[in-house]
């Protein structure tokens, strides 16, 4: 049992470890440092928590590009609350507004019954304009230094640990999660079995919104400030977490999704910082990312086919 567990653990961490070793061989001076390892681990927290927020919707087939706009708008609201109410204003403002936005987004998706992709693009524009309107004459909302402690170690680690535990518990133990997986596998069958598919899809927004609220607290605490985004630029915020989520889903056969998403985010981070260390232009980041994602998906697909073949 222990042997099996160890083999699984090795398999899970094989991906980021092998990437790290590769970068270590290429750039030993830069990567053989506790500071670098610390940065790699910590920079993966926010994309992981966003990935948690995206996961349920992704599983049921929802494409939600409003995530970035919602995080930014929540952070703006939280920042404004922090002026009067300090840290608790920030936290309640971010999480509360994220939940409200999630309710609105999920509700609209439920009522409208049109593809989520269409609605999400429309809502991105709405949320971006709301963010610009809310920030008013201020182009940048900053936090007081004392309120940003969650953006650095060990605050960010505790928040991440809490998010990890929360996601693990909800994803592995709640009927809601089981329903999302059932719908993700076969929506028609799930409907025939009596599941309230629209309600479950609505709840993916709400539950995901809780994690997005946590991510917005971390996001603004990390940078110390945030400004509104327009012209659909907030969509870019969702890509890295989404890729981390996809990698996590690919790894879900050998590890829990909560771990898998973090592994995915960490792997991407190693690639990005490795590209910086190699002195390559940042455009190469996207190329390597795309290639890496294709490789992971191809390996995962091959393994799945092998399993199916064996069972036949």
């Amino acid at each position, binding site marked *: 049992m222990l042997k099996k567990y160890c083999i699984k653990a090795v398999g899970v961490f094989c991906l980021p470890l092998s990437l790290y070793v590769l970068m270590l061989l290429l750039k030993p*001076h830069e990567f053989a440092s506790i*500071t670098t390892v610390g940065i790699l681990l910590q920079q993966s927290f926010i994309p992981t928590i966003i990935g948690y927020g995206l996961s349920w919707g992704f599983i049921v087939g929802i494409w939600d590009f409003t995530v970035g706009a919602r995080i930014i708008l929540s952070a703006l609201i939280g920042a404004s609350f922090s002026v009067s109410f300090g840290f608790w204003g920030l936290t309640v403002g971010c999480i509360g507004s994220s939940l409200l936005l999630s309710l609105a987004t999920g509700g609209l998706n439920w009522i409208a019954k049109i593809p989520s992709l269409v609605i999400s693009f429309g809502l991105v524009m709405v949320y971006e*304009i709301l963010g610009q309107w809310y920030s008013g004459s201020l182009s*940048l909302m900053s936090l007081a230094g004392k309120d940003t402690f969650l953006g650095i170690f060990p605050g960010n680690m505790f928040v991440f640990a809490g998010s990890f535990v929360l996601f693990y518990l909800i994803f592995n133990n709640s009927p809601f999660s089981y329903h999302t997986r059932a719908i993700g596998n076969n929506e028609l069958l799930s409907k025939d079995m009596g599941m309230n598919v629209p309600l479950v899809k609505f709840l993916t927004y709400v539950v995901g919104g809780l994690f997005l609220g946590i991510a917005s607290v971390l996001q603004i605490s990390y*940078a110390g*400030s945030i400004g509104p*985004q*327009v012209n659909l630029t907030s969509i870019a915020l969702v890509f890295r977490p989404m890729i981390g989520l996809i990698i996590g889903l690919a790894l879900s056969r050998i590890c829990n999704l909560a771990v898998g998403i973090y592994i995915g985010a960490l792997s991407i981070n190693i690639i990005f*910082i490795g590209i*910086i260390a190699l002195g390559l232009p940042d455009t190469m980041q996207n190329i390597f990312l795309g290639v890496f994602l294709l490789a992971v998906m191809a390996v995962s697909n091959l393994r799945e086919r092998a399993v199916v073949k064996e069972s036949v």
Partner: protein
Amino acid sequence: MKKIGVFLITLLLVPALMSAKAKTGKSQTSASSASVPKIGFPFLLTSDPTMRAIVRNVKYECEAAGCELVTESWDFTPDALVTATQKLINEGCDGLILAAPSISGIPALIKICTNSKVPFVIPWRHIVDPAVKKMLDECPYFVGNTQEDDEQTAYNLLKSMTQKAGVKNVAVLGLTKGDVSGDMRDHGMQRAADEFNVKILTETRNFSTAADATRTVEGFVAAYPDIDGIFITGGAMTQGILQGTVKALDMHKKQGKVKIGMIDYTSGMDEEIDKGYLYMACGGNMVADPLFSCAMLLNTVKGAPLSDKPLWLKINFINLTSAQSSRDYFKYVEGDVPPYSSDEMKSMFFKFTNPDVTADSFAKVVTDYSLENVMTRHAAK
């Protein structure tokens, strides 16, 4: 139920479409009279204080000249500028301020303005292509260009960073490739790096948020423990880029160990200079440049052109190295009081209000522009 849903979506999207500052955003006019000349100004309308100061001052200048400013939002791509230009011409603009993001888009703008017989100016851009420069010189509707020497400024900044601040290993937070000013600044920076043996460790571009800058600079710290300088080639393009950069350096206790050099100003510079992170910021042209371009255009539109040939004018960057000078800049140039009052504009800019104004006298006003010049005229008031 479906109809209710569609109705709700329409209700949500209509205000967004009407108020959104998107590619085909709504034009904004500064005055409602249909009889006054209109000046069209496609511009990236954001909530950034510098961008707002630019529009505010150009609007003030147009009103001082008895004209109306019509703005049109665009997303800083050549195609969007062409669309915005055509839209403004269709709205009856008598003159245009066109900040072309790249040289390649200029021939199209020349054609549109020539066909429509609308005079135009190009601010902020150094026209490096001789063929395009010739086209502009030969275009009867091109009034003039105001530019800064981005290349030399970037060279001087990095030279100062290495000779006076001892910077030897620099990472770059750059502008998008293809942006004329950005490319010239990259070139000047590289020239200085080659001449003074400064190592350019890496460069990253395309930031949307302060957090992107924080993440990237943390990446620099992780990848290059010896880093001692950060060169920001466009401090105004991303809100919070300076603050995000400093946050990352603060997290890794790099105060005093890493110096930042920045071209283009952004809010909060004085704090970062005080902390010892921001070594020098070069800018001050963002507000003044379109003011001078617009002045040339207004003279032409009002029937009193400064010259029968296009004017090519150079504006000096203002170098800020102290927190007080930074505060002074934001008070006297980008503050509520414009850098040139209405009376000053009428006496120094507009030939139609002061016949003594000539191309040479106006060129001298442009050359004399500096923070000290503005403070001398306004500090006592």
